[in-house]
């Protein structure tokens, strides 16, 4: 780490979200922060903001965004869709008001949510299908191509085609699987695990396992580089980035590390079109790291108590938003 870290802090507009930021997405040029007090804060890059009461009776536990709307799932058992103008509507409700534990959005406008063991997928025509996971479904992710959902649970992950009669395919691996992500080319499925590790499955050609361990904490945040060649992960004192550019995946290859500091990485987000990684830390610091040479840019200084809990680039990559446990947040605008 150099003492002459170039700073972008002057280009950050601070925001008071006033409650823990539990999710974040961009609706074109509006950042949408999902908050633990049940509201969604919508903010423009100049800092102009307004609030939407998406979950008046609850806390937002999970959020997913497709650029057009922010879907939020709460402990009120509801899923709400909020647009950039703040208009919000309930799009689904879990039976008995059960907590919404996971959410995923599909490019077609379809979405899926999990409440307990029950996973519901609703396609773009409004047809709902359900799948009972063998235990609580903790993570959901759609494949980029086709209408296929990965569900993380105890004992592995299940791949499910909601609109086909085919039997869901179980990918076994002992232990409790939390979040799940699908590589952009659809060849790899990766889960985060209770045991401070990641587990991956190669779907082609051989259904091989990939074990990625050595973390100090659970790697709950993952982000694919724009071409899908790299998977950045949280859970250590640096962002740990695994190579997925060959058909074997990271098996037998060491990961790269970026942004080593004396604090744990809590969130990672790859830029949508260049190899620059945004990293958020437990001590509230946010850095940008150019992947090729490790050059670092400071976005936000360490701010104790403000653990970074959400991080997202807008679609074109001109802006970065971050949100924190203490309700602080900010928007960075990169000069052209």
């Amino acid at each position: 780490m150099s003492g002459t870290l170039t700073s972008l802090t002057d280009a950050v507009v601070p925001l008071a979200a006033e409650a823990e930021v539990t999710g974040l997405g961009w609706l074109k040029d509006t950042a949408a922060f999902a908050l633990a007090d049940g509201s969604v804060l919508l903010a423009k890059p100049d800092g102009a903001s307004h609030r939407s009461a998406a979950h008046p009776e609850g806390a937002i536990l999970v959020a997913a965004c497709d650029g057009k709307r922010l879907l939020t799932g709460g402990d009120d058992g509801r899923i709400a869709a909020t647009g950039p103008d703040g208009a919000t509507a309930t799009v689904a409700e879990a039976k008995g008001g059960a907590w919404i534990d996971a959410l995923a959005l599909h490019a077609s406008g379809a979405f899926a949510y999990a409440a307990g063991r029950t996973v519901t997928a609703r396609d773009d025509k409004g047809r709902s299908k359900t799948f009972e996971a063998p235990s609580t479904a903790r993570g959901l992710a759609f494949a980029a191509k086709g209408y296929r959902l990965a569900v993380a649970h105890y004992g592995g992950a299940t791949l499910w085609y909601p609109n086909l009669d085919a039997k869901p395919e179980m990918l076994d691996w002992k232990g409790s699987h939390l979040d799940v992500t699908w590589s952009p080319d659809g060849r790899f499925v990766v889960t985060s695990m209770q045991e401070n590790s990641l587990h991956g499955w190669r779907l082609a050609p051989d259904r091989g396992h990939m074990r990625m361990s050595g973390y100090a904490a659970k790697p709950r945040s993952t982000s694919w580089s724009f071409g899908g060649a790299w998977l950045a992960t949280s859970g250590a004192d640096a962002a740990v980035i695994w190579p997925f550019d060959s058909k074997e995946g990271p098996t037998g290859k060491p990961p790269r590390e970026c942004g080593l500091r004396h604090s744990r990485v809590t969130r990672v987000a790859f830029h949508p079109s260049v190899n620059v990684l945004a990293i958020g830390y437990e001590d509230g610091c946010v850095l940008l790291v150019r992947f090729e040479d490790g050059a670092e840019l400071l976005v936000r200084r360490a701010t104790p108590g403000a653990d970074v809990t959400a991080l997202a680039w807008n679609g074109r990559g001109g802006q970065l938003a971050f949100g924190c446990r203490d309700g602080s947040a900010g928007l960075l605008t990169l000069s052209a």
Partner: protein
Amino acid sequence: MSDKIPVTVLTGYLGAGKTTLLNRILTEQHGRRYAVIVNEFGEIGIDNDLVVGADEEVFEMNNGCICCTVRGDLIRIIEGLMKRRGKFDAIIVETTGLADPAPVAQTFFVDQDVGERARLDAVVTVADAKWLMARLKDAPEAKNQIAFADVVLLNKVDLVSAAELDEVESRIRSINPQATIHRTTNCNIPIAEVLDRKAFDLDRIMEVEPDFLEAGHHHHHDDEMVSFSFRAGEVDPDKFMPWISDLTQREGPNILRCKGIVAFPQEPKRFVFQGVHMILDGDLQREWRPDEKRESRVVFIGRGLDRQAYEEGFRACAA
């Protein structure tokens, strides 16, 4: 430490009166707000958005530790409840009548995220004065719940004679001499006697157990559940640490709980530890007071433990 949310684990065999106690905690005016994690929705007749249903999903940890199990659903629910922190002061976890308390307790030691935000306060077991003797004979879970308890509510005392009551209380003592026992009817007891006991607080681990401090050796046992405690002077950390760690690794499946305060030579602070099966948690806590006798005290509760071997092992650690 102080801003961690205290968690009380409420156990008890079917019909002992757990729901009665929960309803009292939720309806009485005591100035504290509780989030309650229940295993069966609907039993509690109270509409409260801080009552959460759980699934009792017991997961094995993939860490080579055969008895290391955690409650996966509890990890998820506590993570979710923390989004509403500030809305409640403490959490109560109700377990089903047939549950083993160990996975719940271990969750607080094994899961880092839970351990950073919440602390296990005490295991409270509600026991039915009339039926406990019979359950101890035919239900291993009932015996486990008594052995694990920091506080036992011996409930429904109005349904038995004074002699029967003494008998059942001495039976509880034979399984778990360290627990605080309260005799109740309809779980009628000041809430403060049950909640916020700090029984798992390392610094208070022995203070809340006056019996232990005052008495010498204990050796209570029933047919299989054994409990004993030993005292010695200062012990050598280079002998004690490997001994306790190896012991819990080898015998962990049979050790339900262990705890102790240990004096190391030239160490101004007390080393305090506790364990659940193979999981051990220990730290140097406050300094020994000038008027305090620098002695080491350990206690074990478990199934079929060889008292002599434990005692010899502990004595061999003497400094």
